[in-house]
């Protein structure tokens, strides 16, 4: 009978966490707040991101509670507008965009390429401070009245009609944007300049390729949304007229600028998640990722195509029919590289020695949910069906399948996969497998009914709805409570594992990445001596030979 797990832990009676590591090197709050170590900054990000995730999650809970009944009875309709706006702002700018890159990317990219740190450690720390400044400003705006434009700040609503905290919320997103640009810039420079000897481009783990593509997007697209926000501010404060038809401007121009960033931002969010899935699928199938080069280039292709499709968010907004035709066609193209990834992961599984540890369960969840999310995107990319479905719950379900079902599953997969490396300890396997399954079930209960609601015509962003939609909304709210349990469980057992988890050892998953060939938790310098990449990426035979050699040395 084959083994049901690949986990190999050291003898727990003798195993110890290495005394010298990045966590123990210095103590005190200042050693964290002034650190240049990419691993510590990643942990700072992990804590702060989780904080914002639960605030955004609580707002989602309020939305779902309000929608339990057809009437707007839990809160005033104005308040409801503010709640869904802040849910979107916090989840997108302060969780999804930085989630995988700022935590796992920060922690792992230098280790995966065999470097001591990122190229610009101080810029890395600055990016966390900017992130916190933006995040706290967003919370301040929420506490002082909130904003009700929707996370898209759409003009002319945001410039002419609402009197809420548009400026401060815009400023919060603006500041967070710079945090994102700095992270992207740091990754690009690091990947170009700091690879260990032998680490050629085609030996890079696919996690690194995915982050490289996402970083290019961060650097090239984010400034455009920053400019768009500045123009909204200028329009509101001094009425420059760029979005005002009475002065020769055009409100739709804002949407062009906004979506020029915000569509690629979807790929900023999802590409790093895809990087995680490549690593996890390979490790738990014990196989090199099928079509490595195709998967690597599909990341780049997604990044490039992602720039040419933004107007599909605007098909019903009054843009030209010809532009609709062109953008609809281009939107179909971006489905191709995404599908390349899904097919290649599936082929990686074929004849692999698959085991079902928690990261793999989350990865399977990602593959299924992202595929549904992606394919329903095709419905929305076709202009005919888009006219019926846009601004309904179908679109809400679609992007939650991609962002929550895809990205959040990938984030949780990655957190579990690299938890032993980050902390030196294992999380408890059984309860975490349960949490992964609960998340999957809760997610489908929450969001699948929304596809049906949207098809039936229930519009998004309203606190009340016709009574015939109630049953599906009750399903959705009930599902959200299950989903909430699925997200709370990891927090509890991961914190528990910091003290009581089993000692993980260097490489509990028998994975091939350079990050697994050093101690857990790693030294501040990552490696005792500079690693040399003398084997192929995902080379499990090399790993076995290496382990055999170590055994021989130990027995001798």
């Amino acid at each position, binding site marked *: 009978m084959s083994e049901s797990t690949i986990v190999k832990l050291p003898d727990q009676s003798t195993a110890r966490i290495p005394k010298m590591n990045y966590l123990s090197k210095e103590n005190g709050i200042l050693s964290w707040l002034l650190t240049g170590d990419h691993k510590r900054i990643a942990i700072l990000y992990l804590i702060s991101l989780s904080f914002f995730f639960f605030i955004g999650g609580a707002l989602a809970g309020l939305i779902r509670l309000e929608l339990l009944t057809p009437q707007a009875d839990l809160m005033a309709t104005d308040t409801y507008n503010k709640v869904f706006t802040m849910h979107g702002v916090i989840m997108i700018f302060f969780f999804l965009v930085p989630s995988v890159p700022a935590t796992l990317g920060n922690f792992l990219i230098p280790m995966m390429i065999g470097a001591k740190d990122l190229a610009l450690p101080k810029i890395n720390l600055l990016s966390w401070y900017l992130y916190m400044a933006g995040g706290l400003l967003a919370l301040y705006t929420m506490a002082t009245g909130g904003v009700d434009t929707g996370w898209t700040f759409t003009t002319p609503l945001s410039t002419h009609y609402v009197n809420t905290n548009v400026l401060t919320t815009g400023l919060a997103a603006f500041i967070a944007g710079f945090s994102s640009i700095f992270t992207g810039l740091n990754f690009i420079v690091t990947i*170009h300049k700091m690879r260990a000897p032998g680490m050629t481009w085609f030996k890079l783990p696919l996690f690194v390729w995915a982050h490289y593509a996402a970083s*290019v997007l961060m650097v*090239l*697209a984010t400034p*455009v949304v920053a400019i768009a926000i500045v123009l909204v501010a200028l329009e509101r404060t001094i009425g420059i007229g760029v979005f005002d038809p009475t002065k020769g401007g*055009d409100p*739709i*121009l804002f949407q*062009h*600028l906004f979506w*020029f960033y915000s569509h690629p931002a979807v790929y900023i969010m999802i590409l790093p998640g895809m990087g995680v899935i490549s690593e996890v699928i390979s490790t738990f199938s014990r196989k090199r990722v099928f079509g490595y080069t195709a998967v690597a280039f599909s990341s780049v292709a997604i990044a490039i195509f992602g*720039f*040419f499709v933004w*107007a599909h968010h605007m098909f019903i907004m009054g*843009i*030209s*029919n*010809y*532009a609709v*035709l*062109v953008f609809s066609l281009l939107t179909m193209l971006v489905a191709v590289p995404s599908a390349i990834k899904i097919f290649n992961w599936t082929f990686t599984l074929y004849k692999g020695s698959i085991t079902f540890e928690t990261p793999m369960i989350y990865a399977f969840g990602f593959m299924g949910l992202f595929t549904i999310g992606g394919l329903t995107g095709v419905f929305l990319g076709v202009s005919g069906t888009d006219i019926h479905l846009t601004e309904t719950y179908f679109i809400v379900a679609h992007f939650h399948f991609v962002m929550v079902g895809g990205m959040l599953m990938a984030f949780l997969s990655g957190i579990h996969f690299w938890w032993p490396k980050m902390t030196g300890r294992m999380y408890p396997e059984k309860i975490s497998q349960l949490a992964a399954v609960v998340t999957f079930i809760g997610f489908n209960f929450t969001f699948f009914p929304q596809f049906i609601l949207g098809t039936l015509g229930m519009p998004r962003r309203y606190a009340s709805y016709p009574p015939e939609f109630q049953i599906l909304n009750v399903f959705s709210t009930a599902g959200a409570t299950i989903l909430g349990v699925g997200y709370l469980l990891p927090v509890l057992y991961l914190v528990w594992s910091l003290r009581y988890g089993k000692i993980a050892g260097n490489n509990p998953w028998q994975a091939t990445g350079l990050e697994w060939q050093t101690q857990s938790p790693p030294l501040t310098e990552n490696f005792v001596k500079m690693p040399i990449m003398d084997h192929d990426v995902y080379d499990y035979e090399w790993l076995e030979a290496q382990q055999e050699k170590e055994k021989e040395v130990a027995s001798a």
Partner: protein
Amino acid sequence: MSEQNAHAQHAEGKHAHHIVSPKTYALILLALLVGTATTVWASYVDLGIWNPVIALAIACTKATLVVLFFMHVKYSSKLTMLTVLAGIFMFLTLIGMTLADYISRAWGQW
């Protein structure tokens, strides 16, 4: 000779820090000031549709000078130049495809 060394270092992928002479900086500064003055002057002359064209042409020329000389891109590696070109390419995409919408709005139904 020193230029040859700099080229050799470029070829090896090392950073050669090119020192720009104060004279070059002064000339570029002068060109920028002339550009600014011309922009102000041109804005007072009624050239019809050509007013924004001239203003944008001067602005683009000035931006190019800043990028090439003040930001040292003229003396940087090909990778840096490619990075700058990527930014310009994305900018042109933004402008071009947005204009495609504006221009074709009057064409009606297809």
